[in-house]
């Protein structure tokens, strides 16, 4: 999941009011968020960004400059499919759908993420 060599810029735009200094996030989390968002059904890029923003209570804002490369990467890996369709207000938009491989990948990554967060919590609580 974490491809070191490809030098992929994963940046998160944080609401300036919410957090002063954005902490480093675990690499690959963006893919996780995108895949999870797609479990509820096909969404276009803007929809994904909006969904993440809403659900995270405006804490997480996914920037376009990282979202679209991430989507292309997921396409390349075969975790999502893309199809052109009509948006809610009848504009042409590209909808992304989770594939079976994507679902499996999401489950694995999610487990891994929980393990990491659990570990971090343990350290924070007990060190």
């Amino acid at each position, binding site marked *: 999941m974490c491809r070191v*060599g*490809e*030098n*992929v*810029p994963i940046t998160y735009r944080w609401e300036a009011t919410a957090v002063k200094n954005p902490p480093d996030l675990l690499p690959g989390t963006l893919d996780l968020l995108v895949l999870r968002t797609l479990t509820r059904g096909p969404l*276009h*890029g*803007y929809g994904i*960004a909006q969904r993440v923003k809403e659900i995270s209570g405006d804490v997480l804002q996914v*920037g*376009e*400059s990282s979202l*679209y*490369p991430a*989507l*292309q*990467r997921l*396409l*390349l*890996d*075969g975790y999502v499919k*893309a199809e052109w369709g009509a*948006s809610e*207000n009848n*504009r*042409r*938009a*590209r909808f992304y759908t989770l594939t079976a491989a994507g679902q499996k990948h999401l489950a694995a990554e999610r487990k891994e993420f929980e393990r990491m967060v659990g570990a971090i919590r343990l350290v924070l609580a007990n060190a």
Partner: protein
Amino acid sequence: MRLLRRLAQWLRFRANSTDVEEELAFHRESIERDLITRGHTAAEARQAARRAMGNETLTREDARGVWLWPSLDALWQDARVTVRGLLRNPAFTTGVMLTFALGVGANAAMFSLIDRMMLRPPALMRDPARVHRVYMYRTSNGVESETGGQYARNADLARWTTNSFSAVAMHTTKQLAVGVGQDSREMRIGIVSASFFGFFDAPSAAGRYFGASEDAPPSGSPVAVLSYPAWQAQYGGRHDAIGSTVQIGAVVYTIIGVAAKDFVGLWPLRPPVAFIPMSTYAASVLGPKWQTTYSSSFGIGSIARRKPGVSVDAASADLSKALVQSYRAEGRSEDGLAALRPRSLAGSVLIERGPGRSDVARVAMWLGGVAIIVLLIACANVASLLLARALSKRRENAVRLALGVSRTRLLTQLLTESMVLAVAGGLVGMVVGTWMSAMLSAAFLPGIEPPSVTGDPRTLALVGIITLVAGAFTGVLPVLQARRLTITDDLKTGARAGTFRHSRARSALLVLQGALSLVLLVGAGLFVRSLRHVRDVRLGFDPDSVLVVELKWRDVQLDSAKTADLRLRLVGAATTVSGIEHASLQLAAPFGGMTDWPIAVAGIDSVRKFGRFEFNAVSPDYFATMGTRILRGRAFESSDLGGGRGVLVVSEAMGKVLWPGEDPLDKCVRIGIPPDTMPCRYVVGVAEDIHARGFGPQARNFYYYLPAAQWHQQDGGLFVRVAGDVRGAIEPLRRRLQQEMPGSSYVTVARLGELTEAESRSWVMGATVFTAFGALALILAAVGLYSVIAYNVAQRRQELAVRVALGAVTGDVLRLVLGEGLRFAAAGAAVGGAIALFAAPQIAPLLFNQSPRDPIVFGTVTSALLAVAVAASTIPAIRGARVDPNAALRAE
């Protein structure tokens, strides 16, 4: 899967770019719409959306970049930058490209030639590694020579080899007249056993090949298989060609099939137009019982397929055993066999790789090496130029490093530059190669289609490899140089004065170029001198003014007397053609195979112990026709007739060996089988010695002449002496003589020079190609030296200016600069001389009367190299001497 998706994506690259673009536009509009619904004005919303989106191009590039191989894009960019940079400097670029092109072209041409001759197995042959040509040797008078060629001998070997071979086939090719009357033309015909086709994986394109029953002695069947190209050219590829008849030689054959498209048998250079059964042809040209006669042959060879598990040595031993048995069957005594020491060998199926390899092939191998040296010199030159370029870009590169360009990227760019140049050079090189290949073929393999360079995958692959290696090789030095970049120093001083540094790498390259040029020039010198020695050999006749006429009988049967009359008529007719000075009957042509009958001389037990005595049966005009001088006595006269006193003319050496210390005139020689019962023929003249078997010393070959009137006057052809243009006389002569020929018989006319030229071809080839490549190398080395010296002088402007300011005169500066050039050349000459001294004896067997360490050659070549070095350094030296100290020092 990833790879597939990546490739699929690549194929619709453009579509994907617009996909992302449209997606991003949609995203921006969505933000805008949201802002408007939250109460912003349209203009505000648009601006805010743009701000929120940031750099859309970057996003698009990033998204697109996911699909690319990580460094590919950077590489592409480097290549574009490089090409732009190179286009800005056309002189440099053209120079480097041409240098590469010459190196690559020379190698492509030589490779395509060598590949045809000795690397590539015959087309369509099944498992060629296990197919062998059969070589046979026997020893006579202590000298081993190749033998075989008779049907009976080859058949014996096929019959009596035990279990080593799974298949054996006989083969040969002949130039035979195809067609009838004026339309008939001599073409190459493959004469093969029925089993020959089984060696190939070549199903017939139409009809069928002939089978064993059609190739069975005593007479075979008159059936022929056309080659595919002949079928297309002569019959338009029509299927009704099969079943039609064609006259080949004396026999009318029925066409039963067409060979596979690329089938050329064993003869890729001169593919036959048709294949006919061995037995049918043998029966048409040899006497009765031809299949068991060991005395007549027409150059038949055999190929054999070795069984798996049988070693080559075991196969050769088996063949030798069968050969001994064959000599026994011929009736040789055991004593005779012991002296004959018959031996056979399973050689490579490629004739030029077997023991029968020609001198042309040997020289071609050397020239392949020479081509590689030319490439090395070309690479050294390019590397040197690139190095100079890299040195002059030190400051630029230092700035780029300081600005944060990664070293890797910088080095990649340098390599990219040399690669782009090499690839461009390789492309031009293929054009050069095609051209060189055509020239080489025309000169050394006359009458063949020049091997294609651009259409041949093997040659193309080689060009590709050479190009990449050359690109990498030439790029490495500048890269090594650039790795030593120290930003601060170079930024401070840049390429400015006072910091003149000798580049050790460039000096080494220069010495290398000089050395390799010297080696090539020594080779050129040795071959040129060999060729001159060959040309200086007095052959004892003038091949350049003589035409050889041969009579081809086909179906016409004339009795001896009528044939003899016809020949005399032809001699008469020939002299009526304008430009023809003399004409003579002849039985055999020097360099074309002479005739050898047993002779006896009183007082000598066995004349044969001295060597081989060969003769020609000729008209009185023979010696004038050939330009052979009579040293003593007389030539033949028209009074030397059949019924009269038997006479002969002997060569000088023959007279000396048979009657040492005596006058050979009026001595008696008996000729025939057995010789001692034959009547005396008396020596009436002594002619100068001739070379009839090569240019070298003819210690064991002796020649004599009989009047045609006293020897089977019906056999043989004509020699015709031409005053002036020999080639121009061929067609008028042929037309005039053809009028005399009965029925569908015909004459062929060729230059005698063709026979001698074929013998001297290896020296001509060595001399011309070595000289051409040597000159090329010298020019490249001179350009290299010039550029280095000029560069150094430019770098030393300040230093020279200081010297001039301190009182150095023009001569001092000239000496300084010329001395530098000469030092390089001398070092190159020393290294090259050492290499040449070491390597030259290796080519000694290919030279002619020429010591491989000839001091004249070495001396001349070294002085030539030094002279070129002086010439190359003079211009920069003069420029250096003209430095105006005032201007140069003020520029500081």
